[in-house]
C-alpha cells in the first residue's frame, strides 16, 4: 500500500517516538529470551519505519549490490543487497577477507607480504633441518656421535638473526598501530555502538540521538533477502561511505565486542567504559561481523551488519529514522567528546535543532530519560 509523504513522516515520527521511549526499557530489562524463530525480538525496539520499509523493499532477486532505489512512496531507504564474498566469509575460505578500509589494506599487506612469507620460511627451515639431521646422522650412517656441545659463532647468529627479523616486523607493526590510533577529523560522524545480551544498539548522537536496535534474522528470512544466513540482521548500522566515522563502543550488561573483519575493525564493548576508534569504509556495500567476546547463551547469535551508503542516501536514511541531518558545528564536537565516564548520561540534545517532534531528539539508550526540553 502506498503512503502519502506526510502520512509516512507522521507514522515515522510516532514510530520513532515509540522506539525511543521504549528503547531504554529494552536496553535495561532482563533480556527476554529472543527465540531464534521470531524476527522481532525485542519486538518493541524494531523500528516500525524500517519494518514498514522491509515489507516494501524488493525481496526478489537483485544479484548486484547497486544502491537500492527507494520504492515509490516509502521514506527513501531500502536495505542494500550484499555482494557474495564482499564483507562476508567465503565458503571454504582460507585467506583474510577482502579489505575496504585504508588501515585494513595496510594490515592485510603486512600479514600477506611480510608475516606469511617469514613464518612459512621459518617452518620450512626447521622442517628441512630436522629431516636433514634425521637422515644424515641416523645411527646406521653415523654410528659414532660427536661430542660437540658448543659453537659460539652459531649461537650468536641464531640469537641475532631472529632479533633483526623481529625488528623488521616491528617497523610496519608499530606503523600500523599508529595509524589505527589516529583521531577522526572534527565533524566526523559519531556512532555509538551498545552491546546488549544479545543484540546491538546503534545510536547516532550527532543526528538526534535515536537508537537503532539490530537483531539477528532467522536463517530463512536472511536467505529470502539474499543475505548470508546467521549474519543478517533486521536493522543495520547505516553509515556514510568514504568518510571517517568516530565509532564508540560500550555495553549495557556484560562485555561484548564489535567486530567487522572486512573493515579490520574490532573494539570491545565494555559496560561502564566508552571505547573509541575511527572507521573508514571506502565504498558502499554491506559488511558483516559477529560479536567477538563471550557474552552468554546467544553470543554466537548477535551479528553485525554495517551498510555504507553514499552521503545523500545516508542522510535520507537518517531522516527516515526520525533523526536530523545538518551542519551543527557546535553540537558535533561536543557530542563527540563523550568522556569515558558515565557514557549513558550524555545530554546530547542540548544543541539539537528541534526540526522533528521533541520526543525524537531524546538521547537514546539512556535509563528512563528525563528528556530536557528540546
Amino acid at each position, binding site marked *: 500500500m502506498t503512503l502519502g509523504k506526510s502520512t509516512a513522516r507522521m507514522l515515522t515520527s510516532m514510530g520513532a517516538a515509540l522506539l525511543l521511549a521504549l528503547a531504554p526499557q529494552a536496553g535495561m530489562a532482563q533480556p527476554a529470551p529472543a527465540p531464534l524463530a521470531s524476527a522481532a525480538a525485542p519486538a518493541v525496539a524494531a523500528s516500525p519505519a524500517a519494518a514498514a520499509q522491509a515489507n516494501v523493499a524488493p525481496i526478489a532477486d537483485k544479484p548486484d549490490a547497486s544502491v537500492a532505489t527507494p520504492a515509490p512512496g516509502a521514506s527513501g531507504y531500502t536495505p542494500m543487497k550484499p555482494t557474495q564474498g564482499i564483507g562476508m566469509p567465503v565458503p571454504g575460505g582460507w585467506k583474510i577477507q577482502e579489505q575496504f578500509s585504508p588501515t585494513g589494506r595496510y594490515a592485510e599487506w603486512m600479514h600477506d607480504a611480510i608475516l606469511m612469507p617469514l613464518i612459512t620460511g621459518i617452518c620450512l627451515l*626447521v622442517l628441512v633441518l630436522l629431516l636433514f639431521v634425521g637422515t644424515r646422522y641416523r645411527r646406521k650412517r653415523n654410528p659414532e656421535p660427536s661430542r660437540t656441545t658448543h659453537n659460539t659463532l652459531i649461537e650468536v647468529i641464531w640469537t641475532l638473526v631472529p632479533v633483526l627479523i623481529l625488528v623488521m616486523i616491528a617497523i610496519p607493526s608499530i606503523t600500523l598501530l599508529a595509524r589505527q590510533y589516529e583521531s577522526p577529523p572534527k565533524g566526523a560522524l559519531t556512532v555509538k555502538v551498545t552491546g546488549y545480551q544479545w543484540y546491538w544498539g546503534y545510536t547516532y548522537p550527532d543526528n538526534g540521538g535515536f537508537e537503532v536496535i539490530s537483531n539477528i534474522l532467522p536463517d530463512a528470512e536472511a536467505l529470502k533477502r539474499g543475505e548470508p544466513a546467521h549474519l543478517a540482521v533486521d536493522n543495520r548500522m547505516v553509515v556514510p561511505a568514504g568518510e571517517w566515522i568516530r565509532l564508540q563502543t560500550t555495553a549495557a550488561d556484560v562485555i561484548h565486542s564489535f567486530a567487522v573483519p572486512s573493515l579490520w575493525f574490532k*573494539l570491545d564493548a565494555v559496560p561502564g567504559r566508552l571505547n573509541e576508534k575511527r572507521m573508514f569504509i571506502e565504498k558502499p556495500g554491506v559488511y558483516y561481523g559477529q560479536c567477538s567476546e563471550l557474552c552468554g547463551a546467544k553470543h554466537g547469535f548477535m551479528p553485525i551488519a554495517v551498510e555504507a551508503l553514499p552521503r545523500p542516501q545516508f542522510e535520507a536514511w537518517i531522516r527516515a529514522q526520525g533523526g536530523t541531518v545538518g551542519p551543527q558545528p557546535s553540537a558535533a564536537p561536543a557530542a563527540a567528546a563523550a568522556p569515558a565516564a558515565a557514557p549513558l548520561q550524555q545530554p546530547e540534545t542540548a544543541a539539537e535543532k528541534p526540526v522533528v517532534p521533541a520526543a525524537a531528539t531524546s538521547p537514546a539508550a539512556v535509563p528512563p530519560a528525563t528528556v530536557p526540553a528540546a
Partner: protein
Amino acid sequence: MATTADTFQAHHEDHGHHDADHKPGFFARWFMSTNHKDIGTLYLIFAICSGTLGGIISGVMRAELSEPGIQYLGWWAHMVGSPATVDATLHMWNVLITAHALIMIFFTVMPALMGAFGNWFVPLMIGAPDMAFPRMNNISFWLTAAGFTSLMISNFVPGDASGNGAGTGWTMYAPLSTSGSPGPSVDFAIFAIHLAGAASIMGAINFITTIFNMRAPGMTLHKMPLFVWSVLVTAFLLLLSLPVLAAAITMLITDRNFGTTFFDASGGGDPILYQHLFWFFGHPEVYIMIIPGFGMISQIVATFSRKPVFGYLGMAYAMVAIGVVGFIVWAHHMFTTGLDVNTKMYFTAATMVIAVPTGVKIFSWIATMWGGSIEFKSPLVWALGMIFLFTIGGVTGVVLANGGIDDYMQDTYYVVGHFHYVLSMGAVFSLFAGFYYWFPKMSGRMHSEFLSHLHFWIFFIGVNMIFFPMHFLGLDGMPRRIPDYTPAFTYWNHFATIGYMVMASSMVVFFVNLIYAFVAGKRAGDNPWGVGATTLEWTLSSPPPYHQFETLPVIEDDHGHHGVAHA
C-alpha cells in the same frame, strides 16, 4: 600402577637396606602417600583420566560444529539437568567449552607435567631420596582431586538464568562471571580453581626447596639435567603468578556473593581490572604448560642422539628468560579492550622478544642431533614431532603478537588454532614423548614400540587435520566460542571433525599399548635406551626401589656431562 615393584630385588645401592622396598598397606600407600614416585603415579593416572574426559568433551564439541545448525546440544543440556529451552541449549555450549579448557589446563597438562613427571623424576635426577616436603606433596595431589570434584559439581547446578553449568569460558571474565551468572555453578568452578591453584603453589614450594637444597654432592646448579631446570623455572612461575589468579577469582567471589563491586562500573569498579589480573597469571600459565615439556624434549633428544644437549647454559637460561619475560607481556590477550596506543605498542614489542630465546631452544635441539648417532625410538619420534609442530604454533604466535594485526584475529579461530598447536601439539607431544621415555622406568615393562609409532602417526595426522584448518577459519572471520555458524564456514569445520575422529582412533592405540605393556610387555632393565641415557634415573632398577638414594650418589666432575652418574 607399579605392580611389578614387589618382585624386583636387586639394585645398585642399598645392599643390606632391605627395608628400602618395604611398602605401607594399600590404603596408607595410596591415600596417605609420602612417596614421590607413588604420588607421581597418582597424578599420572589422574591426568590420563581427566584428559580423556576433556577429550571426550571436545569430541562432543566437534560433533556439534561439524555442520551448521544445532544438533546435539539439547541432549547434553538435558544430561546436566537443564530445562529444555533454547537458551539452556545454547548455554550448554559455553559450559562445554569452559569445562574442556579448565579440565585440560588445570587437571590434565599441569598435573601430568609437574605432578606426574616432576614428582617422579626430579628427585631421581638430582640424586635425592624424595621431595623436600613429602606430606605436602600428597596434600597437593588430593587438593587437585578435590578441585576436579568441585568442577564436576559445577556442571550440575544452575549457572546463569537459563541452564546448569558455568558458561563463562575458562577466563571467567566479569561481568559475565559475576552479574551474568547468578547461580552457584561459577562459585563451584572458582572453588575448583582455588583448590588446584593452592595445590600447585604448594607443589612449587616443594620443587624449589628440593632443587635448591637436596641435590646430590657434586651436582651444582649448572650440572643439573635440563628437565630439572625446567621444573625449577616453572615452579617459580607458579609461585609468583598463581597468587594473582587467586586474588582475581576471590574478587569474583566477593563481587558475586558479598556485595563488592571490584569489576562493576556502577559501583566504581572496572571489568578490565579483572582481565589485567587474570592475564597477569594467564600468560605465565601458558609457559608453565610448556617449559617442563621443553625439559623433557631436551632429555629425550640427548638420549637418542647419544650426544649431550648443545649449548647447555643457553638452554637453561633461555628457559629462565622465557619465564621472566613471560611476566611482562600479559596484555597481548587484551589488545582489543581499548588499551591506549603506547601500551599496545609496548606489549607488541615485548611479546615479540620471547621469540628469541624460544628460537635458541629450537635451534639448539637441532644442533644437538647434528653430528649425533640418532636412533628413532618412539620417544624421539614424538619429540621431533613436537619440535616441528611447536614451531608452527610459535610463529602464528608471532603473528598474533602484533597488536594491530591482532585486531583482526582476536577471538577468532586463528587464536584457537595457535594455542592448540602449542598445547595439543607442543605440550601433549612432549607429554607422550616423556610418557614413552619413562614408562619402562615407572612400570618395569616395555611398551610396544610398533604401537607407539602407530599412535604417533595417526595422532599426528589427526591433530593437524583438526587444528590447521582453524587458521583458515580464523582468517575467514569465524569467531570463537560459538556453537553455530554461517554456512561459509562449513567446509573446514567438517574437515576438522573428521580429523578429530582420526585423533580419537589413535588414542585407542595408546590404550591398547598400555594394556599390552602390563599384560605381555617385556620386563624393562635399568636402562632400556642405551648409552645416551645419562641421567641418574637410569642407574636405578625399573621400577626403582620404594626408597632410593638413601646413600647419596656422588657426582664427579664429568667435563660437561651434566647430571651424569659415575657409580
